């Protein structure tokens, strides 16, 4: 177990280091999420309720995650490094978990900027709404890391990733919006937790088959 966690830690730190150097992903995510919230602010008719505003927040979060995930495996694709990782004697699921944690880290940074901007432009956020964002972000990162690995191995990666990810994100959007606006937010948080657990286990178990031909 210690070895597994050490592998995950080494691979996650590698992703953060690569992003610090290349700055390929995070600046684009930050710019997109802020731009989307500002544009939505002016596009939304006056007097529109909080329900619609929360819907827009989730559109911004899902597409920001999609932006990050579309670049997630780029460093591995550039010079065949994924083969190097797959051949290493570590558990292959560690590669997926590390990518999930790195993606979650980038998304969390984008949300650190997006959530205060949302509170300023639209509506205040309570604890349940923030918990919903955190749980849904883990779910998107977990499923998205698996799907983006599948997409990275195919020719039409820009098309395949949204085609696969967006339908699977709908439950997360429903849960996230529900946690933000419903008086019974606990039910939605539980739903998000269950989604995360089920899809994380499925992704963890199936990653090995995605990276071998």
């Amino acid at each position, binding site marked *: 177990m210690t070895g597994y966690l050490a592998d995950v830690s080494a691979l996650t730190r590698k992703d953060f*280091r690569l992003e610090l150097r290349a700055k390929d992903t995070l600046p684009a995510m930050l710019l997109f999420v802020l731009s989307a919230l500002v544009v939505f602010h002016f596009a939304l008719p006056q007097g529109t309720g909080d329900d619609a505003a929360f819907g827009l927040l989730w559109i911004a979060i899902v597409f920001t995650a999609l932006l990050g995930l579309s670049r997630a495996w780029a460093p591995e694709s550039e010079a*065949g*490094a994924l*083969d190097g990782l797959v051949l*290493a*004697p570590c558990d292959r699921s560690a590669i997926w978990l590390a990518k999930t944690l790195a993606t979650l880290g980038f998304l969390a940074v984008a949300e650190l900027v997006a959530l205060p901007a949302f509170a300023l432009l639209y509506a205040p956020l309570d604890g349940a709404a923030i918990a919903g964002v955190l749980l849904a972000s883990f779910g998107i990162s977990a499923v998205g890391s698996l799907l983006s690995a599948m997409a990275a191995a195919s020719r039409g990666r820009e098309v395949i990733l949204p085609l696969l990810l967006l339908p699977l994100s709908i439950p997360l959007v429903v849960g996230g919006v529900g946690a933000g606006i419903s008086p019974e937010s606990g039910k939605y948080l539980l739903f998000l937790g269950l989604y995360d657990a089920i899809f994380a286990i499925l992704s963890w178990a199936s990653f090995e088959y995605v990276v071998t031909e």
Partner: protein
Amino acid sequence: MITANDLEKRYGRKRVLRGLSFELARGGLLLTTGPNGSGKTTLLRLVAGLVVPSRGTLAIDATRAELGYLGHEPMLYRNLTALENLDLFGRLYRVPDRRERAGMLLERFGLWEARGERVSAYSRGMMQRLAICRALLHDPALLVLDEPFTALDEEGAALLDRELRTAAGQRTVLLSSHDPERVSALATQRLALA
């Protein structure tokens, strides 16, 4: 060490390998030759475990930890330095004293001075030398080399020659090359793919 029996690999409808059988004993060097598209790379990727056979059996008496693979691509991170790349793979392979081992290999292949440079700044030949270092990092018992002399200058090729000569008889090597004369003296077996 490697026993292939009636091996076949298809990609969709395209059959790349068909009815291939061979045995390679421990310590032997199998030189694979053949024209482009004859399945050399597919065979090497099958042995490495990167692809699975469509039919037939392939028994390899080595774990993933004992296998060193050099493919067409360098399998490195371009925005990491040479040392950072080797350190990462050394961790994953649980190489004891990985920094010393990485330093020794970088020195042996003439990359010590460039150890702190990002791989993206390397020439193709330097990248190939570093890829060889990565494949040798964990001192593998089975070495699978796909066109290892590609992009190497005369000095780099001589360093690889020396490495193969030193390991002859101790390390099992499966190698494909468009320049078979270069390693024919070391080869214990030849496999010509059509």
